[in-house]
């Protein structure tokens, strides 16, 4: 089974983000970057599936040369090939999905797994556009019934289950108050939620091997995709700073303040 996954480069969630002077972007200086955590879950899921249903796992990333770092990370985890869409400049979710659509048409995977969203823009759109434009079935927010402490998780059992003859996949989605099970006819698009799996570490031998795995370059122009954004960011602002809490001397004061100041009781 051939699986295509995404490996977007995002700001490390633990770095301190500051809005730049123009108010339309963030200060990049001194920031650390990593693979979008939801994409890392997608890579992990693909590797688990590939261990049971052998085939290539192709990782795709869009951006400048710096995204090689995230592609190498996916390769170090175990992906077999990387595709780099060399693109500088702004890109909206439709642009990303158009580019991915072209790569999917070239690579012809049986399954595409993406993060449900990237943690920088938090849009949650690409997987949906992609499935729509490919005309494929989609299951968003893939999760699983086992907990992340279960034996199955330790044994790296995939949460996405491939049906007999590899014609379908079953996906569990967490919905309010329960689990929603979907069966998709392949090829299909799946997007990952946080509890689908705990990604493996890139091992040191894996990192060494990744250096010699194939990394293919594409461009928007070469793929014949117009990526001129239809959406532009007009303003970014920091959330208001949290005010320091106060200490109250006793319960009576607390109750009074809840009534008169917070007006919650």
């Amino acid at each position: 089974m051939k699986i295509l996954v995404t490996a977007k480069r995002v700001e490390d969630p633990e770095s301190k983000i500051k809005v730049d002077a123009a108010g339309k972007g963030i200060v990049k200086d001194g920031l650390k970057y990593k693979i979008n955590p939801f994409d890392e879950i997608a890579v992990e899921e693909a590797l688990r599936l590939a261990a049971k249903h052998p085939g290539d796992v192709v990782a795709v990333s869009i951006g400048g040369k710096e995204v090689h770092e995230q592609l190498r990370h996916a390769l170090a985890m175990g992906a077999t090939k990387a595709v780099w869409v060399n693109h500088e400049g702004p890109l909206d979710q439709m642009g990303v999905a158009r580019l991915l659509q072209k790569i999917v048409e070239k690579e012809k995977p049986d399954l595409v797994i993406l993060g449900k969203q990237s943690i920088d823009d938090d849009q949650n759109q690409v997987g949906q556009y992609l499935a729509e434009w490919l005309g494929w079935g989609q299951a968003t927010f893939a999760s699983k019934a086992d907990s992340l402490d279960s034996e199955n998780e330790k044994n790296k059992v995939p949460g996405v289950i491939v049906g007999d003859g590899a014609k379908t996949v079953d996906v569990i989605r967490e919905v309010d108050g329960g689990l929603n099970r979907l069966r998709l006819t392949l090829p299909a698009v799946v997007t990952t939620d946080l509890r689908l799996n705990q990604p493996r570490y890139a091992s040191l031998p894996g990192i060494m091997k990744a250096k010699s795995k194939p990394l293919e370059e594409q461009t928007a122009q070469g793929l014949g995709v117009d990526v001129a954004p239809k959406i532009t960011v007009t303003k970014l602002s920091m959330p208001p700073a949290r005010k320091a809490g106060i200490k109250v001397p006793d319960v009576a004061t607390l109750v009074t303040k809840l009534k008169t100041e917070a007006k919650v009781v």
Partner: protein
Amino acid sequence: MSRAAITDLYRIDDLLEPEERAARDAVAQFVDREYLPIVGKHFRNGTFPMEVVPRVAELGIFGAPLKGYGCAGMSNTMYALALQELERGDSGLRSFASVQSSLCMWPIYTFGSDEQKERWLPGMARGKLIGCFGLTEPDYGSDPGGMLTRARRDGDSYVLNGSKMWITNGSIADVAVVWAKVDDEGPQSIRGFLVEKGMPGFVASEIHGKFSLRASFTSELSFADVRVPAKNMLPGVQGLKGPLSCLNNARMGISFAVMGAAVACFEGARDYALTRKAFGRPIAGFQLTQEKLADMLQEIVKGQLLALRLARLKDLHGKVDPAQVSLCKRNNVKVALDIARVARSIYGANGVTDEYPPIRHALNLESVYTYEGTHEVHTLIVGKAITGLDAFGG
């Protein structure tokens, strides 16, 4: 990984290859997620977390600089960066990895027969088999040439008698690389033997009462007429240069690793000083505290550059001069120990408890100061390189 940007003031990161950074970050993530949350408990109880051994093996750290036999075949720099992260967690796991890789797998790889390599290396790389290194004796530490342990040839075996002291991993090891003099000859007759767990007459017992490296097992090994097949002798080396070359190899990693403990102490103390208030303001705002933090950072930057250069020299030439290693071990362990002690002081009374890491690192580093050649012995090695005069005898 949330490395404070200030810790890398000199952008040493830019001196690393992308895969070196990737390797370091993978190990850092493991340490943050799986080792730091449990190590305090193990230090308190005086136990070693065996459950992390398979995880460290999965990361490919054991025997990482060796080629083949399931080892990663990576550069010494990459390996040393991995050790630095383990030590940022605790010196216990880093010591385990150093002993397994540099003191046990390395001599088997370098001096062993094909049969010995096949038998031990793949299992040790996977963390299924554990090794230890027996050189120090109750009466001979800095001066191993005086060792009393003897191996007497008897048919196609050797019969070992004697004891070894302060042996990391001794009581959990499947194989011990034991150095012994053959018959009653001098240091030139020293040979290495692979003594296997369960061989009659071989006993490993744990040493209790340590205030240092508590999250690591340290043992005494005793040999009473232990019959070791001659094929278990390392064929490729004879004399003191056997054990000393192992140590030279391990010390390179250790010199780099201790900077991890220093970084943990520096970053912890900085965060603590920014939030802890005295006299109405954060203690980080006092000149005396700032001097402490500035001294720490300055020594970390210098120590990391020194260690990186040493690792690169080893990658470039395949080996490093003992004086180069001694200078780095001597400097880096000393500054790491000083940093841990000063960090401890910034935590005030909190710093004397195991709720905060500096005292654990400070206590660990007391062992690191002594093992792998004491600070004083390294001074003498550098001194001899400078003057050409041997001052070991007085």
